């Protein structure tokens, strides 16, 4: 096994904020009280990521994803625990660490607001000491995949969200970082731009073996990009495995939708009822939905059984989607923690 590029050990992050009281009276009271509220955003998280991995880091709103990313990129210091990226503790050696990483925060640009985009890249070229050849080659690649040309001379402030996000991604990748952190890089993007962004990430990972950590609420991003998935909830890690493993663990339920050729007679209805033990049946207007666990019987078996009873016009097979799985995991953990 190769060395871990990123290692988090029992990382916690607490935010301490002054307590706020409602209303005007409350505001005055707040001025004099020293009461604080402690919020544990990240609670004892450990994981290790190897070079070249693409990891989806997901969780519901407020789960602590962004906070973790900020600690790994050196913006925040953990309250306890250790976080090592490429042999450095990011928050201790921020400048050194910054050379190894690229960061894209979907909600906020990493570009300088008042510089024209083109100039931003020349500044970055100098900062990261990118050679002229590399610079030209990479810019050509970005232009190709991300279509930056059309707004290269605009000031960052004037870019649209999607343009800005593409520009941000290119800026994060210009120095060919070892690690790329993407915090919701596809938020609010149209389908085409999403595709471009994903393609760029995929190619960079393939060509340079860049390690990618991605948080997103669009699970298609995960499905298209990541081999591994880490799920956190309320600051705690609740799942960590490959995507295939996840589907194996949770993606066993399956449903098949049948549409009858003609309405069933009572005899056929009765025969259907006998199947009820193993399969869950939901009658529909012109047909029936059959739900079952793939561990117990196969799709072929189910189809054979139903077709043995009545003539069928149409069949639709629905595997569990990642969204459903994740929804189940989120809901499951809610039940546990409450």
């Amino acid at each position, binding site marked *: 096994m190769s060395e871990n590029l990123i290692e988090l050990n029992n990382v916690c992050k607490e*935010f301490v904020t002054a307590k706020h009281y409602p209303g005007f009276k409350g505001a005055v009271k707040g001025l004099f009280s020293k009461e604080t509220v402690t919020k544990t955003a990240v609670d004892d998280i450990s994981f290790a990521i190897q070079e070249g991995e693409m990891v989806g880091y997901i969780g519901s709103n407020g789960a602590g994803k*962004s906070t973790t990313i*900020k600690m790994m*990129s*050196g*913006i*925040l*210091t953990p309250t306890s625990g250790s976080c090592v990226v490429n042999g450095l503790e990011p928050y201790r050696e*921020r*400048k*050194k660490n*910054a*050379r190894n*990483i690229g*960061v894209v*925060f979907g*909600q*906020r*640009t*990493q570009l*300088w*607001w*008042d*510089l*024209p985009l083109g*100039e931003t890249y*020349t*500044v*970055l070229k*100098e*900062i*990261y*000491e990118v050679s002229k050849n590399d610079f030209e080659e990479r810019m050509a690649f970005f232009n190709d995949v991300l279509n930056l040309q059309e707004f290269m001379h605009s000031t960052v402030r004037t870019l649209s969200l999607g343009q800005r996000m593409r520009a941000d991604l290119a800026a994060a990748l210009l120095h060919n970082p070892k690690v790329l952190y993407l*915090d919701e890089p596809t938020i609010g993007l149209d389908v085409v731009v999403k595709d471009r962004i994903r393609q760029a990430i995929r190619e960079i990972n393939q060509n340079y073996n860049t390690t990618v950590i991605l948080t997103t609420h669009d699970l298609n991003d995960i499905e298209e990009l990541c081999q591994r998935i880490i799920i956190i909830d309320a600051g705690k890690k609740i799942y960590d495995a490959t995507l295939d493993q996840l589907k194996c663990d949770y993606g066993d339920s399956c449903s098949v939708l049948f549409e009858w050729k003609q309405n069933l007679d009572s005899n056929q209805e009765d025969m259907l009822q006998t199947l009820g033990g193993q399969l869950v049946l939901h009658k529909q207007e012109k047909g029936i939905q059959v739900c079952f666990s793939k561990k117990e019987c196969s799709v072929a078996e189910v189809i054979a059984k139903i077709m043995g009873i009545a003539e069928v016009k149409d069949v639709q097979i629905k595997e569990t989607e990642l969204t459903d799985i994740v929804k189940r995991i989120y809901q499951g953990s809610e039940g546990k923690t409450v």
Partner: protein
Amino acid sequence: MKKYLRIYWPFAANQIKSNFVYKGRFYLFILRKFLGMFIYYYLWMAIYASASSGELGGFSRSEMILYVFMSYTISDMVMVGISSEIGYDVTDGSVAMSLTKPIDYRTRLVFKSLGVMIYRAVVPTLFIWIGLEIYKVCKLGMPVTNPMTMTATLLSVLFSFFIYIFFDYCFGMLAFVTTYIFGMNIIKNATLNFLTGRLIPISFFPTALQKIFSFLPFTAMTYVPVMIYLGKYSGMQVLEQLGKQALWVVVLYLFGSFLWKKIERRIVILGG
């Protein structure tokens, strides 16, 4: 050094450019400057007209005219604040950016301000200075400023720029502690108008206060270069004042670094 400039110069250049680009802002800016200066000028002239002696606080009427225009232009050029930008960066969380890139936050801000200063040095300061020089010789019957004095003045102005910006950087660090930096900025500016001698020359203050002021960096922000220009200091005193300014540059720079180190650890980036 060359590399350093290549990284940071675009920030200055961009400020110069964008300041020139916005024409409307440009004329408004000039108008405001002139209005301010002339109100101030007429105020002092009224005071001199009603005074019994021709000299107030060690300034003759002619010297006061020069003082008014010089202190106004110099403070305008030199006091290019960065604390409100720090305030914005902190409240909207974009300081995070300077932490994920190997670029120095303060240096970048200094270069941005440098751009503004260069712009203001040309528009309108240079023209006012030339006008003032002509006025001084033709109307007030004073000699042309000698090159030595001019050089010392310019050097002093440059020091003033750094003193103010490093001071304002320290002040801006407050944004990490309180979210009310913008209100405090207004108070700061009002106070500075007094302490730098922009409103009233320092020599008008009681001697005890003047003593205290000499231990503070504020007089070095405007008053010193103006006094050098007016020839109020002897050769030795000029050197002494320049040395003091240089010292303040270093002290405030180091203090800023110290504050940043302290704060860096506790940084909490809001939002996201």
